[in-house]
C-alpha cells in the first residue's frame, strides 16, 4: 500500500502503457489482428462507461484485462474465434525471423498453444507472457486462484508436449473446464 500524498513512480491511472499488452491478449483470444483491434477499442469504450467501478489502488491492468475478457466471452466474438481456429494463425506467428535453429521449435509451440482451450490460453498468456501474478490473473478472469493454478498446470503439460504437435487440427484431451 502506498502512503497517502506520496507521488507514485508512474501514474497508476495511465492506460496507454497497457495498450500493447491488451492488444496481444486480444489477439490470443480472437486469433485475428483486426478482430483484436476492435475488441480492444470496444473494451476501452466499455471501461470509460464503467470508470466508476474501478477501485483506486487495485491493479489497473487486471481491471482492463477483465474488461477485454468479459467483452470477448459475452458476445459472439468467442464463437467467431473458435471458427477461426486453424493452423494458419499459429504458422504466421511462428514465421517471423527467430533464427533458423529454433523456428521449428517455435512453430510447434505456437501450434500447441493454439490448440489449447480458450480458458487455458488466457491463463497461460496472462501469466507467462504478460507476467501477471496469480492474484491479478484471478481478478482478470474472475476465477479463484486455485482454478488459475490448475489450468496453468494442465496447460503446461500440454505445451511441454510429448509427440509432434503438427498434427492439425490438434485437440488437447482431458481439458475439462474446472471453473
Amino acid at each position, binding site marked *: 500500500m502506498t502512503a497517502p500524498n506520496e507521488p507514485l513512480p508512474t501514474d497508476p491511472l495511465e492506460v496507454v502503457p*497497457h495498450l500493447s499488452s491488451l492488444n496481444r491478449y486480444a489477439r490470443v483470444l480472437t486469433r485475428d489482428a483486426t478482430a483484436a483491434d476492435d475488441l480492444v477499442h470496444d473494451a476501452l469504450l466499455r471501461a470509460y462507461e464503467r470508470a*466508476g467501478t474501478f477501485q483506486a*489502488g487495485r491493479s489497473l491492468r487486471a481491471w482492463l484485462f477483465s474488461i477485454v475478457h468479459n467483452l470477448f466471452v459475452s458476445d459472439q466474438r468467442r464463437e467467431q474465434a473458435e471458427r477461426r481456429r486453424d493452423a494458419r494463425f499459429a504458422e504466421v506467428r511462428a514465421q517471423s525471423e527467430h533464427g533458423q535453429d529454433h523456428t521449428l521449435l517455435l512453430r510447434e509451440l505456437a501450434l500447441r498453444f493454439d490448440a489449447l482451450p480458450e480458458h487455458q490460453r488466457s491463463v497461460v498468456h496472462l501469466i507467462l507472457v504478460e507476467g501477471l501474478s496469480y492474484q491479478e490473473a484471478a481478478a482478470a478472469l474472475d476465477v479463484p486462484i486455485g482454478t488459475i493454478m490448475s489450468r496453468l*498446470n494442465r496447460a503446461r503439460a500440454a505445451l511441454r508436449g510429448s509427440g509432434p504437435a503438427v498434427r492439425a487440427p490438434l485437440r488437447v484431451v482431458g481439458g475439462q473446464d474446472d471453473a
Partner: protein
Amino acid sequence: MTPEQVSETEIDAYVDGELDMARRLAVEDWLARHPAEATRVMADLRTRTGLRLLCEGEGAVPPASLAAADRLSRRLRQANRPKRRWATPRRVTLAGVGGSIAAALALLPTPTVMAAPPAYVADAVQGYQTALLRAGMRSQATSRDFDRSEVQRRTNIRVPRLPNGWEITDVQIFPSDEGPALQIMIRTQDRQDISIFAVRADSRAPQSPEAIRHGSTSVAYWRQHDISYALIGAEAPEALDVAAEDFADNQTD
C-alpha cells in the same frame, strides 16, 4: 539429510515467481537433487521464453485506441481526484478504511451533474464502518442509551426524530474538523444496519438528499440550516434516498 518434499504445484509457483525466498530455496534444493523434475522446469522456462518470442512485434496499437486510452485515463483521474484531499486520516486506527472509502466515494456521482460530496461525508462513512466493526467486537461496549436533549445541549446538534420501528443500537460523539459530530447506529424495521451522521457545519450539501453508492455502501447526504446530515447503509441508494427524504421531512426543530 533428506531435502524437504515439494509439490508440483509449488514447482509451478516457483517458475511463475510466486514463492518467497525460503520456499524458493526449498524448491531449488529439491530440484538440484531431482534431475528429471529439473529438466521439466527447464522445459517450462523454454515454453515461457518461446511464447514471449512468438508475441514479439505484436501489440501494435491503432491511433483510435490511443485516443480512447487517453480519454479513459482522464476519466479515471477525474473520478479519483478528491482522494488526495480526503486521504489524510484523522483517526489513525481506520486510516486504510477511511482512505479507500473516500476514494471510492469520489467515484460515485455523475461528474457532469453532481459536485463531489462535501468533506464531512467521508467522515460519516468512516464512522459507519467503525461502528460496524465495533458491533462485531465483543471488547467494544456499545452505548444504546440516548438522551436527545442532553445531546442537543452538549453538541448543539438538533437530533432528528426516528421513524417508528427504528431501534438505536449505538450512539457516538466524536471530534471532526467542523466540531463534534454525532453518529447514531440504527437497526431498521427490516433489520438493516444504518447510520445517521450529523455535524454542525454549513457545508455544501444540498437541501434535499442526494444519494450515491460505492460497493456495498450507500450514502445520502443533505443539509438543514447549519446542520449537515448523512444517512449511510448497505441498501441501494434509491432506498436510502427515500429513507433520507422521509427523515429530512421528519426532523425536529
